């Protein structure tokens, strides 16, 4: 299913999220099962199905990584369930170092300051990768799509780091 088509929006990475939000609400209202309570069983079932699709589509398009994955899937490059290992040694070494920094936060004299520094670093890297991703996806060539897939993989590591950092922050607050 083409999620962009469902909302009648152009299949682009650079998406108007406000527009997506209002179209989502409109569609949701239109297909809400309560609107079809007087219809046949088949109509009701279809409405439920359509509501589920609309929700899936909205949540996928809202998040940049899932939106990018969906765009690539529409172009025939499916990476969402791949189990292939990522093997870029330089990138992984950097990830390892960031993980080590996270592990050392608790022992540091000023954990909040360290968290702030790492947080800024992660945001900056993520921003940079997302910009590269937008450029790669815009060019719509097979080569750039492969590059985009790699950028998505890299971003996933950064989103994971972000999660881990938030976890540590919570634990320190408790």
């Amino acid at each position, binding site marked *: 299913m083409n999620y962009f088509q469902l909302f009648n929006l152009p299949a682009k990475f650079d998406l108007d999220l406000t527009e997506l939000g209002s179209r989502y609400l409109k569609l949701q209202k239109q297909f809400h099962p309560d609107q079809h309570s007087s219809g046949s069983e088949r109509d009701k079932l279809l409405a439920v199905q359509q509501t589920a699709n609309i929700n899936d589509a909205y949540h996928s398009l809202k998040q940049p990584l899932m939106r990018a994955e969906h765009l690539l899937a529409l172009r025939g490059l499916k990476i969402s*369930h*791949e*189990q292939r*290992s*990522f*093997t870029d*040694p330089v*990138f*992984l*070494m950097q*990830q*390892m170092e960031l*993980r080590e920094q996270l592990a050392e936060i608790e022992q540091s004299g000023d954990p909040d300051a360290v968290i702030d520094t790492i947080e800024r670093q992660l945001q900056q890297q993520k921003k940079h990768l997302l910009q590269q991703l937008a450029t790669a996806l815009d060019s719509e060539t097979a080569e750039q799509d492969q590059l985009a897939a790699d950028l*998505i*993989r*890299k971003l*996933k*590591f950064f*989103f*994971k*780091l972000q*999660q*881990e950092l938030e976890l540590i922050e919570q634990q320190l607050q408790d």
Partner: protein
Amino acid sequence: MAYSNKVIDHYENPRNVGSFDKDDDTVATGMVGAPACGDVMKLQIKVNAAGIIEDAKFKTYGCGSAIASSSLVTEWVKGKSLDEAQQIKNTDIAQELALPPVKIHCSILAEDAIKAAIADYKQKHGG
């Protein structure tokens, strides 16, 4: 999800955690990661003049199954030749640790890590 006793054992008492000096000529390093869960795994081997893996170390940031898989592999490769170590299959790891289907990718990661380390050694030593 319940971990098997073997996974818990390796998770609580991981074998061979640590690092070798990656610039040491007898040391080779394999780095792999799983984008889906953000796991990162480093596996290092120390190879003697006869081509036998004398020692191995790992460092893994990931779930219990990923840590157990890499810990197990460092135990398995010690005393093996590079060719023998190359034969280690993720299915053997998964079976030994009784990994559930959703954690099979952790054993794939460990297999890829040892393969990457062997490739690094061969590259360092000209083929």
